[in-house]
C-alpha cells in the first residue's frame, strides 16, 4: 500500500515538474521562433529610428551600469554593517526594511522616483531611470552580502582577532575574502535582474528612438521599447519587439548562467 502511495506521489510531482518545465520550454521556443524570424545583424548596427536596436541595447546597459555603480557599493557597505556591526535594534530594523523593499512592486518604485526626481527636475531623464533601477538593486545586494557573510564561520573571525587584528582588518582581509565568490555571484544575479526591468523605467527615463548618451533627457531603454513596440499597430513594429525580446532573454540567460557557473565551482 505504502509503495503505491509512493508511486502516486512520485508520479504527481514529476508531472508538476514537467508542466512547469513545459511552460518554460514553450516560452523559450516561442521566443526563439518569433525572435529569430525577425533577427538580423543590422539590428545591432542601426538605432530604433532606422529600425534597429543598437541604441536601446547600449542604453539599457548604461542605465543598468549606473544603477550598479550606485547600488553595489552602497548595498555591500550596508550588508557588511548589518552582519559585522549590527547587534543593535537598528540592524534588525534595516534588515526588515530591506526585505520589504525587495518585494515592493517595481511600478511603485517607478512612481516614487517619478515624484521625487522627475517632477522637481521638470522631465524624464536617464538619471531618474538609473536611480529607480538602483533602488531596486539595493535590497538584493544588501541581502546577498548579509547572507554570504553570515555563512563565514564565527571561528574564522575569532581566529583573526586572536592574532591581534583589529575588527575592520578582520573584515577586510579575511571575512570578505572568504565570502567573495558568494557575494560576486549575488551581485551578478542582481544585475541580471535589473537589466530586464521595465516598470521602474516607464515613467522615469521612458525611452528614445535615437542613440543618446545624454542622461538628462529621456534615455533609450530596450525593455520600455519592447512595451511600446508591442502596442503599435504595425506588423513590423511587433516583429521588432519579438527580436528585441529574444535578445533581452539571451542576455539575461547568459548573465544568470555565468553566475551559476561560478557558484558551482565554489561548491566543489
Amino acid at each position, binding site marked *: 500500500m505504502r509503495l503505491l502511495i509512493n508511486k502516486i506521489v512520485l508520479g504527481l510531482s514529476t508531472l508538476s515538474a514537467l508542466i512547469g518545465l513545459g511552460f518554460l520550454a514553450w516560452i523559450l521556443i516561442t521566443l526563439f521562433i518569433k525572435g529569430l524570424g525577425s533577427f538580423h545583424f543590422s539590428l545591432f548596427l542601426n538605432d530604433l529610428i532606422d529600425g534597429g536596436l543598437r541604441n536601446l541595447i547600449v542604453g539599457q546597459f548604461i542605465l543598468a551600469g549606473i544603477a550598479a555603480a550606485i547600488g553595489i557599493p552602497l548595498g555591500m557597505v550596508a550588508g557588511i554593517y548589518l552582519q559585522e556591526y549590527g547587534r543593535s535594534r537598528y540592524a534588525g530594523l534595516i534588515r526588515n526594511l530591506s526585505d520589504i523593499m525587495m518585494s515592493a512592486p517595481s511600478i511603485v518604485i517607478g512612481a516614487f522616483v517619478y515624484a521625487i526626481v522627475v517632477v522637481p527636475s521638470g522631465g524624464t531623464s536617464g538619471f531618474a531611470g538609473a536611480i529607480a533601477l538602483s533602488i531596486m538593486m539595493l535590497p538584493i545586494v544588501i541581502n546577498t552580502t548579509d547572507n554570504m557573510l553570515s555563512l563565514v564561520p564565527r571561528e*574564522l573571525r575569532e*581566529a583573526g582577532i*586572536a*592574532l*591581534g587584528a583589529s575588527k575592520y582588518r578582520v573584515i577586510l*582581509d579575511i571575512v570578505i575574502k*572568504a565570502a567573495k565568490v558568494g557575494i560576486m555571484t549575488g551581485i551578478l544575479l542582481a544585475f541580471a535582474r535589473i537589466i530586464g526591468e521595465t516598470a521602474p523605467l516607464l515613467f522615469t527615463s521612458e525611452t528614445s528612438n535615437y542613440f543618446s548618451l545624454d542622461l538628462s533627457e529621456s534615455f533609450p531603454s530596450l525593455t520600455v521599447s519592447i512595451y511600446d513596440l508591442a502596442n503599435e499597430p504595425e506588423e513590423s513594429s511587433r516583429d521588432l519587439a519579438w527580436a528585441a525580446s529574444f535578445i533581452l532573454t539571451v542576455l539575461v540567460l547568459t548573465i544568470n548562467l555565468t553566475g551559476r557557473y561560478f557558484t558551482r565551482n565554489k561548491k566543489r
Partner: protein
Amino acid sequence: MPVMNIQDFSFTYPNVSHPSLKNINMKIRKNKITALIGPSGCGKSTLLRSMNRIHDLYPGNRYEGTIDLLNDSTQKMENILDIKKENEFIELRQRVGMIFQKPTPFPMSIFDNVAYGLKIAGIKNKSELAGRVEQALKDGALWKEVNDRLDKSAMGLSGGQQQRLCIARAVAVKPEVILFDEPTSALDPISTGAIEELLVELKKDVSIAIVTHNMQQASRISDYTAFMYLGDLIEFDKTESIFLNPKEKQTEDYITGRFG
C-alpha cells in the same frame, strides 16, 4: 613564577543571570602544559577564552576577580581584566595566542597565512618575513610538507595540515602563551598524534593551556591538570596526582568514567 595567575575569577555571559564560572583559582606555569578537563558545559572553554579576552568580541560580559599575566620586561604581573583600549587588546592577543577546534586557515596563500600576524605586528621587510615564516612552519612541523608550495591557497591542505598551519601562524608572532581549544577533536588519530607531539615540543618555547574532552590526551601530554564541573574548579594539581591519586571524589568519578 607562574606566567598567568587566575584568582577568584568569576564570569557571567551577557543577558544571563547566573555566572558560568565561579571563583576560579589556578595558575598557568611557564613552559608547562596545563590541561582543562571536565564534562560538557563545565566551563573549561569559557575559562580558556577569558585568558585572551576573546569574549569581548561580544559585549556585555561581567567579570569578577583577576587574571594576571606576567610582563616579561618588568617581571610584574598585570591584570588583563583591566584592559579597555583597543591597542591594549591587540597587544594582549599578540602575547596570548589561540588555536580553535575547527582549523581556521585564512582564504589566502600558505605564506600569507603565516605572515598575517607578523604584518599586523608591523614587520614589513620581505626577507625578515620570509625567514620568520620559514621558522614558524618548521616549529609547526609543516615546513617539509609545504615549502614547495607556499604561494598556493591554504584551503587545499588536509585537516591536520590546516591545524598545523594555524599553529605555525600563532607561533610566528612569538607569543608567551598559546591557548588550545580542543585542537584535535576534529582530526583523525594520526593527525592527533602528530599535533600532540608538536605540543610537547612547543612547550620549550611557549606556555600552553589546552582544553580537551579526551582525558587520555590530558594524561599523555600535560604537566598540570584542572578538573572542572558546572563552572567550579574542583581540583587542580600535577597531572600525575590527578590521574593516580585524585583528592576529590568527583575528580575520581570523572577519571574512572563513572559520570560525564
